[in-house]
C-alpha cells in the first residue's frame, strides 16, 4: 500500500515503526484513519500475522521530523487496540520489500534483461514468449529495488506491484 507523501514532510526523514495491534476487525481502519485525519503520511504499510495469533503487526514507514514522529507514536498509543509501538529509527534492521515487475521482453533484449536479473539476484517468475513479456520478482531493501528499477529503465516496464516494507531488528532485541 503506497501513498503519495504530502509536501509538508518531503524534506523530513523517513522512519520505520512497528505497531503491534490486537488482531480484531476494524483495527487497520483505526490506524490508517488516524494517520489520515492528523495529516501524518504513510509511505508504506504492511500488515501481517505474528507469532502470537491474537496480535498483528503493522510495519509503517512514515516521513516527518522528530515532532511529527513523537505525535504519531503518542496518538497511535491512544488507540486502545494498539498494544505496543517500536520506533526503529537508527536501529540495525533487516528490511525487505518484494516487487513484481512485468517487462516487455522480445528475442532481442530478453537475454540482457535476464542477465540483469541475475546480477540483482532477482527471479524470472513468468515468461510468455508469445506476447513477449516476463515477470521478474525481486526481494530486498528499498535501495536494492530502486537500483534494479533504475537499471530496467531503458526497457519497457508494463506493470509493477510492490509490497510495503517489513522489518525485524537484528539480534535478540525485539521488534
Amino acid at each position, binding site marked *: 500500500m503506497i501513498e503519495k507523501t504530502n509536501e509538508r514532510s518531503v524534506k523530513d526523514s523517513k522512519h520505520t515503526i512497528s505497531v503491534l495491534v490486537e488482531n480484531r476487525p*476494524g483495527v487497520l*481502519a483505526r490506524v490508517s484513519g488516524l494517520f489520515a*485525519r492528523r495529516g501524518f503520511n504513510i509511505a508504506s504499510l504492511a500488515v501481517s500475522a505474528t507469532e502470537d495469533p491474537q496480535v498483528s503487526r503493522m510495519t509503517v514507514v512514515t516521513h516527518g521530523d522528530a515532532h511529527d514522529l513523537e*505525535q504519531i507514536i*503518542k496518538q497511535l498509543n491512544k488507540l*486502545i487496540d494498539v498494544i505496543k509501538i517500536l520506533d526503529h529509527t537508527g536501529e540495525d534492521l533487516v528490511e525487505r520489500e518484494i516487487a513484481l515487475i512485468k517487462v516487455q521482453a522480445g528475442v532481442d533484449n530478453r537475454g540482457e534483461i535476464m542477465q540483469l536479473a541475475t546480477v540483482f539476484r532477482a527471479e524470472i517468475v513468468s515468461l510468455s514468449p508469445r506476447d513477449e513479456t516476463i515477470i521478474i520478482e525481486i526481494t530486498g531493501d528499498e535501495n536494492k529495488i530502486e537500483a534494479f528499477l533504475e537499471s530496467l529503465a531503458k526497457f519497457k516496464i508494463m506493470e509493477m506491484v510492490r509490497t510495503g516494507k517489513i522489518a525485524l531488528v537484528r539480534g535478540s532485541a525485539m521488534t
Partner: protein
Amino acid sequence: MNGAEALVESLKREGVKHIFGISGGAALPIYDALSRPEAKSIQNILVRHEQAAAHMAEGYARASGKVGVCLATSGPGATNLVTGIADAILDSIPIVAITGQVPTSVIGTDAFQESDIMGITMPIVKHSIQPRRADDIPRAIKEAFHIAGTGRPGPVLVDIPRDVSQGQVEKFIYPDKVSLRGYQVHQVANPEDIEAAARLIAESTRPVLYVGGGVVNTDAHKELLALAERLDAPVTTTLMGRGAFPDAHPLALNMPGMHGTAYANWAVRDCDLLIAVGVRFDDRVTGNLAKFACKAKVIHVEVDPAEVHKNRRVEVSILADAKDALKKLHSATKARKNPEWRRQISEWKEQEPLRYNENGKIKPQHIVQQISELTAGEAILSTDVGQHQMWAAQFYSFKRPRQFLTSGGLGTMGYGLPAAMGAKFARPEQEVWLITGDGSFQMNSQELATSMIYKVPVKIALFNNHSLGMVKQWQDLFYEERYSGVNLEAVPNFEKLADAYGCLGITVTKTQEIRPALEKARETNDRTVLIDFRVDPSEHVYPMIPSGLSVDEMRLQPK
C-alpha cells in the same frame, strides 16, 4: 436472559441510574429489557432528539463526575448522536453511547436504518466496541465504562446488533476487572518530574497557574487551592476549567485567551513560570503560539501523553492525574510570597477589570452579574455557544468545579438546554441556569417538552439579539460590517413558545424588569422558566484577541 437483559444488568452493575435516548427498530430489544421490573432502578428518559440525549449524558457526567449514558437506535438515531460524541471527545467528557444496529446477518447490505456508526464515529470516540455475541455484552460494557471514565475521559460507543441483543446469554458473568493491554493510565506522578518541577518553582519569581478541565475531571480543586496559596501564584482558569478555582479569591485571574481578562493575559505574557495543569494549550487560549508565555518556562501536568509537547515544548512534564501531581507538588515546595508580582497583578486588575458600558439598554453582562449575585455563585450554569457563553464565563463568579457546563472544544450550539437538564437529573437539589442566545436555543428547544415531562425544571436566561451575535461581531470587526447569514429576524415569540410547552415564559424589554424576572424565575420551581431578554444587539464581547494573534493585539472594551 437475552443480550438486552444482560446489557441492563451490566448497566446496573455500573451504577447507572439514568439513560437518555429514543427507541427504534434495532433498539427494541433493549427498550423491552428496560421496561422490565428488573430495570426499575434505571430511569429511562425519552428525549425529543438523539443529539439532546448525548448532550444530556454529557451534562449529567459533568455535573456528577459519573459516566453519562445515552441510547439510540440504528441509522438516523445513531447519526444524531454524532455531534454529542464529538463534543465529548473534545471536552474529555465521559459518556457511553449505546446504539442499536441492524442484525449481523444484514450488516453491510444497506439494510433499512443501517449506518456504519462504528466507522462514522471512529475519529471521534475514545474507543468503540461492537459485540458480536450476546455473551460479549457484559465485558463490552465493563470495558466501555472503564475506558470512558479513566485517564483522560471521553466517549465510548457500544454498537449492538439486534440479533446480539436478542440472542441468548449462556451464563451472565460480569467481569470484576478490565484487562486491556493496550490501555494504560498514567495516574501517579514520577518523583523525578516532581523534583524537577519543584526546582523550577523555586527559581521562579513570577509564577502563574494555568488550569483547565483536567482539574475539574479529577476534582482536584482543593489541591489546586492549597498549591496556589502555598506558592502565592495567581490562577487563570480556562473555559473548561472555570470553577476549578474560586473567582472571589484574591489569586483568581478569571479566564485566559481570546476572550479572557486583560489581567490574565498580561500575567501569562509576563510570567517566568507557567504551571499548566490539565490543559492542552488550545488555540483559543494561546493565539499565536510563538508569542504565548514566551518569557516563561513551562511545567505541564497532563494525564494524556499526546498533549505533552503537542502545541508547546515544555521544560518539565508530569504525566499524571492532576490531583496526584498537585498534592505532590505541594509537598515538594516551600511556602512563599511574591509581593512584587502580586502588586503588579493587582495594578492590572484595577487598570482593566472586566467591564461594559451602560447605555440604558439591557446589557447581557449585567444579567449574568445579577444571576451570579442572586444565586450567590452557587448555581449550576450551562451555556450554549457564542457571545452569551463568553459573558457567562467572564461574569459569573464561580465557586467550585462541576458548576459550569459548556461546549468548549467543539463549540456546539444546542448543547446548553439538554446539558442543563442532564445536570438537573444528576443534581436535582441544585438550581440550574441556562444562559443562551436566540440562535443556539433554537437548535434544541424541543427539549422544553422533556424538561416538563420529567420535572427537571431549569431557568433559562435567553439573550435575544435577533442574530448570531458572535458571528456578527466578527463581521463587524473583520468584514467591514458586511453581514452575511447572521440575521435571525423571524425569531419566535419565546414567551409563547415556552407557554406552548407548559413552561413559564417572560419577556423583558426594560432594564427595571430584569431583577423581578430573575426573582420570579428563582421562585418558580415546578416548571421550566424562560426569560426572553431583549438585549442590546450592538454589544460585543471584550477583551478580544483576534484569532491567531497575541496579547499585544488584544482589543479592550472601548471606553
